């Protein structure tokens, strides 16, 4: 993982966040997934973290020595996958 330039490794593709940014944020004390999400917006794009959060959990474990259970406590918020707004409008019967 550290063989390549961390500035060129994209960890979160939705929000374009590099490994370098993740490592620096952890060093600054943003040492939980919840804080990293709000600091870097990782996992907050259209994929809702399905692509990046497990990877970031692993980086957190390596950097902080915490266990998987300690770092991976995600809150899954509906609709999980993006849904177009029109699908919530409902039928005309309901007025």
């Amino acid at each position: 993982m550290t063989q390549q330039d961390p500035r060129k490794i994209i960890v979160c593709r939705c929000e374009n966040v590099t490994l370098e940014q993740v490592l620096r944020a952890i060093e600054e004390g943003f040492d939980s997934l919840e804080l990293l999400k709000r600091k870097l917006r990782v996992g907050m794009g259209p994929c809702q973290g399905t692509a990046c959060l497990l990877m970031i959990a692993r980086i957190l474990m390596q950097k902080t020595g915490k266990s998987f259970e300690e770092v991976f406590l995600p809150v899954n918020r509906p609709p999980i996958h993006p849904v177009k707004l029109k699908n919530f409008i409902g039928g005309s019967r309901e007025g």
Partner: protein
Amino acid sequence: MKAEVVVVGAGVTGVLTSATLFEKGIHDIVLVEKNYPGSGGSFRCATGIRASFTSREHIEVMKRAIELWPAISAKYGIKYSRDGYLWILTRERDVEFFKEVVEFQNSRGVPTRMMGPSQVQELVPTMRTDKIIAAVHDPMAGKASCFEAVLNPLAVLRKQGITILSNTQAYKLIVENNVIKGVLTSKGIIHADQVLVAAGGESRDLLKTIGIDLPIRNIPKHVMVSETFKPIIKPLMIDWTTSSYILQLLHGNFYIGADIPEKHDVEASNRLEFLRRAARVWSTYFPWLREVYILRYWTGYYDMTPDHHPIIGPIKEVEELYVAAGFSGHGFMMAPAVAEALAEYMTGGKPVVREFENLNYERFVKGEVIKEIAVFG
């Protein structure tokens, strides 16, 4: 553990107050947070900032906050923009009411004004305005990044050596001879010379441990957020008829809230009724929203007091105990002014903005609650 000041609650109020206290020379501060910083109302809120209220207290406090927001924005790198607020009116009877509101606000230096549908169209070009009969615009209102407003000052505090205890529950206040002595937490007792409780609705539970009953009740609120776009909708808009609102966050997401019937002090849960109402109201004004992807739906609470104004300042019954809670949905926007006022109280002074003194806890004991010309927003 021992500290000069213990702050319970690392939301925007607790963090900004700690930062202001640090500047005033109080460096031995412990921040106690039951979950992670910002995890309560601060990170769930709509991020709107306005002084267009209907009580003298709210207006004066928010005017001070609007003066301070550019400074803390520059200092900590917090995105902040005066993009305005717009109240949309679709019923004749609301127009007369809002004329009174605007007159009151103008008399206190808040530059709101009534406008017609064509002016709304100019401000928000992609909106359908055919159902709108009038609107009220507040050009001084705006929005800020709630994540940066908590995390950036917190990073500075951490560098300055402030102790931040996350995942730490405050169980009980410790008082001897009517003087605060500390806080019992899940990580043990923290002795302190001063304690600030800024823990939202849970401030009530903590104050109850010393027999003080803050009149705060939680009401569930619902929000959904879309994928991001370039700036399309500038002002935060409130549809007065349906009590729902939309804004485009500074990051680019559309943030939509709508009121549905809720009970106080119940656990917030996701409801289809919210999604339907919010989607119907805003897809009528913005037909293109139908094709926009919704990413998340979450709930949170407004910590409501009987007069919809917060409880801020010292608790007379217990020396060196301070509270900032019950913001009733307006805590984020006023936080810089609240931090300033609390730091003044806690260093032996009085708030520069005199109206803060009216927001004391005693008003509920005496039955002298804050008066508004109308309850609004």
